[in-house]
């Protein structure tokens, strides 16, 4: 029944900890109450038994004091017995003794009883006499007078001060103990719940600390109860990884399969363009080529994204020279930059400073940034790559001029597929900056846009040692 009750107390809106605490506290209170009443009951029983034994002892001493005189029976009531009976607790004393069916001595109006016990086993009653509750021991005892058997009916009763005074003491002490027990058990409950829920808390913290792209398996040093959860988490992660892999493969394959025909279309269109004579033909072909370029950019960015997602999960750290890498990337873009008469300048305050990180992702990020700069920089301007290593921080800055002011917020620039206001004539997918941000964050770096409002655009990428 208690378990049903506990199951009902499964308030849906409470946390596990609160539920646990509530249930345990309720159980504690129930136990406390039960204990209280149980102990009280036991002590009451003990008290009654003690009193009963006293009464029995008194009966014994009374029996000893019967004597016959002149064929008559008489009783020399024992003073000490009566004195003792009341000594402990100032209880009132009543008695009645009948000899056969005749009243011998005592209180005539003493209440009747149904049955009498005997000296070895008196029968006890709870009666009321003179407005007092009394505990009565009743026996009948045979006594031989002149060879004839006679019966003595003896009832002796005592008020219950004996019980109640000690009872109230016990109750007070008991209440105190139970209260302490409750307080202690509540403390223990709180402690125990915290400790038992710790694995969950640890697991939760562990999962919270993860970066969004973290797809490493969850460590399985958890208690048995959490093992299924961790197992399913991990299988989910594996599935997701698998999905990612599949997607990545799919995307790569798709990209490849898109690119090849795209390349063909582009080159054919270019040939046609170069051969075309009329202005309108040239325009049409130019438009076709622009569309191809746009498609190509999107495909590239999508592929990059997939690659980054996958790669961030399993970084391949390498020790390489930042300056060497930057120089290489500049060389890669030089022809494209030259077409727009854009010059690269570099300011490195280190000839060759090494960094340990995923080289591929690093270069992808920088590549995207340089590509971005070239796209948006007006012709005959300068793109500056600045690198410095200071206070254990690698900082790469890329500065270029832009045609128009950008009247947008920084956060908007990071949004996927965001195209700036000055990007009308520029082919791009808008994935660039958000991708760079993801990569840099994944490599534990910081990506900031320092200037973007005036006609200058400056970004900063920081890596901490």
């Amino acid at each position, binding site marked *: 029944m208690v378990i049903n009750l506990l199951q009902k107390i499964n308030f849906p809106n409470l946390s596990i900890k609160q539920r646990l605490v509530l249930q345990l506290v309720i159980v504690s209170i129930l136990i406390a109450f039960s204990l209280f009443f149980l102990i009280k009951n036991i002590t009451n029983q003990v008290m009654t038994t003690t009193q009963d034994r006293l009464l029995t002892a008194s009966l014994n001493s009374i029996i000893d004091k019967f004597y016959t005189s002149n064929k008559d029976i*008489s009783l020399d*009531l024992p003073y000490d017995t*009566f004195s003792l*009976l009341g000594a402990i607790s*100032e209880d*009132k*004393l009543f008695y009645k003794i009948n000899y056969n069916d005749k009243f011998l001595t*005592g209180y005539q109006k003493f209440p009747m009883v149904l049955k009498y016990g005997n000296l070895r086993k008196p029968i006890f009653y709870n009666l009321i006499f003179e407005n007092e509750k009394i505990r009565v021991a009743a026996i009948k005892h045979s006594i031989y007078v002149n060879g004839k058997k006679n019966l003595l009916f003896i009832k002796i009763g005592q008020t219950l*001060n004996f019980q109640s005074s000690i009872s109230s003491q016990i109750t007070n002490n008991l209440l105190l103990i139970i209260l302490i027990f409750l307080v202690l058990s509540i403390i223990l409950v709180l402690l125990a719940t915290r400790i038992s829920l710790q694995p969950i808390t640890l697991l939760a913290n562990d999962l919270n600390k993860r970066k969004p792209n973290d797809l490493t398996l969850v460590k399985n040093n958890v208690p048995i109860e959490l093992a299924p959860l961790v197992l399913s988490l991990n299988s989910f992660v594996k599935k997701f990884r698998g999905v990612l892999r599949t997607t990545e493969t799919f995307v790569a394959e798709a990209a490849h399969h898109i690119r090849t025909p795209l390349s063909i279309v582009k080159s054919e269109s270019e040939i046609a363009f170069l051969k075309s004579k009329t202005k309108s033909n040239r325009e049409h072909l130019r438009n076709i080529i622009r569309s191809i370029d746009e498609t190509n950019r999107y495909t590239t960015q999508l592929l990059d994204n997939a690659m980054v997602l996958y790669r961030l999960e399993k970084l391949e750290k390498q020790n390489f020279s930042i300056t060497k890498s930057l120089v290489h990337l500049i060389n890669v873009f030089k022809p494209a930059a030259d077409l727009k008469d854009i010059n690269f300048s570099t300011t490195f305050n280190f000839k060759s400073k090494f960094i340990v990180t995923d080289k591929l992702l690093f270069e992808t990020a920088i590549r995207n940034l340089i590509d971005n700069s070239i796209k948006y920089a007006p012709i005959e301007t300068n793109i500056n790559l600045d690198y410095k290593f200071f206070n254990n921080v690698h900082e790469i800055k890329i500065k270029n001029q832009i045609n128009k002011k950008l009247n947008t917020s920084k956060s908007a620039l990071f949004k996927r597929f965001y195209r700036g206001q000055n990007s009308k004539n520029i082919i791009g997918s808008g994935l660039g900056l958000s991708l760079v941000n993801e990569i840099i964050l994944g490599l534990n770096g910081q990506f900031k846009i320092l200037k973007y409002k005036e006609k200058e655009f400056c970004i900063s990428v920081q890596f901490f040692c």
Partner: protein
Amino acid sequence: MYFSSIFLLIFLITFKAHSLVIETINEYGPKKNYPDLNILSSTDVDVFEPLIKLFVKDNKQIRIRYVTASTSDIYKEITNSNKSNFDLVISSAMDLQMKLANDGFALDIENIEKSAIPEWSMWRKQIVGFSIEPIVTVISKADFNIKIPKTRRDLISILRNNPNKFYKKIITYDINKSGAGFLFASQDERQSESFWRLAEVMGSLKTKVVCCSSKMLDAVNSRESYIAYNIIGSYAEQRARKQKNLIVVYPYDYTLLLLRSAIIPKNSKNKANANIFLKFLLSKPGQKILEKKGMLSIKNKKIFKKGNIKLIRLDTGLLVYLDKLKRKRFLSEWNEALFQ
């Protein structure tokens, strides 16, 4: 205030119908038709009067009636309770007070600080002792040229050795009539077997029995008796101060110490006043004024050094000698011994 006793004589007559034998009746306090506190006591009025007067001074609105009677009459009065209307019952018969309380004739006393009085002086918040009394032997100085008996044994041998001297010269309580006397004798029996030997000897010398301590003291003072056995100590000491013939002896073998106690009878209509009076009775000034009259304060500790003091315990043991059979047996034996 004493004038009102004339009016009260009329009450006496009506009380007679009640079968209470009133010894004295006095009223104190403001003039009223009916008392605010009706006290029934076995203690002499001269002993209590100063206390009552002091009380009435501080409690100007309470009119007190102080009625004295014998201890057994007091018991009878309270147990025929339908007509009685007393608010406080004072008696030196501890056993009778105990029986009253045990049998449900007493009300709970309120406002008594347990720490203010010894634990043996209160029973169940229904009986409270306010003064202690040693039970002594008084001897006529003039007639005792022999060694003064320090123990009962001594007394027995003196009596046995000088039968002629002490023939008809011993006086004690008639325990058939006096509740107090019965108490003393029964407690004597409890304490030692020498009691019956003493009783025998006393009987053989035709001991005189009377109702009360005062009469016994008068007898010794007038040299009518040479030995008064089982006398209330305070009375003896008071008298002995003035009457130089009286020597008070605290027997060495044991000296009984009794408790003068008070109960509030269940029919009382002035419970509150009774409680106030009791509180005063037990207070320092109350106790002091009793001591002035020769009584011992309940808190007195010196008395316990006077001899082998045996305090009669205020417990249900006291009921035993009041048991029909026991009492009958005791009395018959005592009578047999004393009246040979």
